[in-house]
């Protein structure tokens, strides 16, 4: 395969912005999101020869971003850093959220209160536009689990957002 022909630097330039946007939806702050994405591309650079095809490269990066984001959140939850994401205790949003309309801010904050898997599935589905199969591959779960997580997540959001209308 053509993994040897992979131009990681070019992929990075082309996809950096989208990947950071993806990561920021998982980890909240931009600096951490950039770190996670940089890490993901470094991992791609190192492991490019294992990829089945060039097309698999961005799937690999997407999965690495998810894994990197989980690591960040795990660290935060162990108390080394401020608690930002999951859990009802999470506080104010990031700085850029002041730019958002109230309903968008409310929706994102409700999303952040969801369990990790539901949150990841909904971000992949409604922001990345990934198919269930792609989400399953990225998260390393079955399509059934994707459907179930998406369904529960949306139901919870309906309850939280709908109840306030």
């Amino acid at each position, binding site marked *: 395969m053509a*993994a040897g022909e992979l131009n*990681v*630097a070019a992929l*990075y*330039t082309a996809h*950096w*912005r989208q990947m*950071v*946007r*993806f990561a*920021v*939806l998982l980890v909240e702050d*931009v600096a951490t*999101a*950039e*770190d*996670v994405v*940089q*890490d*993901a*591309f*470094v*991992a791609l*650079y*190192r*492991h490019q*020869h*294992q990829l089945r095809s060039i097309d698999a490269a961005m799937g690999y990066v997407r999965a*690495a971003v998810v*894994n*990197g984001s989980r*690591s*960040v959140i*795990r660290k935060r939850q162990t108390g080394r850093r401020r608690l930002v994401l999951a859990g009802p205790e999470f506080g104010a949003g*990031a700085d*850029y*959220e002041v*730019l*958002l*309309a109230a*309903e*968008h*801010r*409310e*929706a*994102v904050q409700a*999303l952040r209160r969801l369990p990790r898997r539901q949150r990841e599935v*909904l*971000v992949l589905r*409604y*922001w990345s536009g990934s198919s269930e199969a792609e989400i399953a591959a990225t998260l390393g779960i079955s399509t059934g689990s994707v459907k179930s997580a998406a369904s529960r997540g*949306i139901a919870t*959001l*309906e309850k939280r*957002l*709908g109840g306030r209308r």
Partner: protein
Amino acid sequence: MTHEVETMLAAALDATATAAVPDDRRVPPFIGVGAGEPAVRGRRPWASPLLAAAAVAVVAVGAAVTVAAVRAERQSPAGTSLPSPLPGVSSQHVPSGSGSAPTSRPTSQAPSGAPHSAAPQSPFDLGFQPLWPFRDLQEATAWRVAHQSTGVQPWHSDAGQTALSFTQGYLGLRAIDTVTSTSIDQDGAHIGVGYRDPNGGLRTSAVLHLVRFGPQSDAPWEVVGSDDTSFSLEHPDYGSTVTSPITVGGHITGVDESITVTVRQIANPAPLGRTCCTPAGGVNSPWTVSVSFSGATDDVLTVLATTGGHLMAVERFTIQGVRTRS
């Protein structure tokens, strides 16, 4: 209602992502690393002062006394014990990148055939922590004398084979079976050890630092530490005196890493202590773990940290030399 929430969620996510990373946000440069070559994060804290001291020594009194110039910075290892058996070294791999070709491969035999009385009373001081294969100058000298008369264990003369034997035989990292780089200068030898990935690419797991154990040009090589890479072990300090448990830590760059720490001494084939599978990752992220050990009898211990789990169980490692008594 579901459709309404889905639409709102999609719009909210889009607005959030765009607000966080606007279209005009510049793409920072990609900090890639060479395949098989860990990103250098900097040498160990002890390396710079030692190099500086060595440089001063070269200017002042010439290269012949370079090693002596760093003495003042390091304590002298005890040098009174008799040579004793070393841990098993059963490597059958011939380093691909090493320079000279020894006449036989590393064995598990200790350099114990030489008469102990042959060891000279020398003011030589290694200047570093002697991690492996010799515990002190007497052991090293005993091998040298024996080698001169019988040619025993010539691999001690080869920095690459010594580094590989240390990795496989002493540390027990059998899958790391290749010398990936060799650099020898007045600071000693810096030997990259690693493995070939499934596609034949050469991967460096660590760069080991070796110095000659003795003032002679044919003195055997001794492993004294590792150069920092994208995976470092910085605590406890090099050469510090430790007691159990030790808080071990450093920095790491990587994704989904799993760190295992072991404590070893030459006198025992089995680790004195071990702790497994500490999750880590990120860019130059700190990691720390506590490891308990028991049964230490040697003056010097080797603390080993490994990580991996992507391609191989152990893909990278780093070591630190510490002391059980000052």
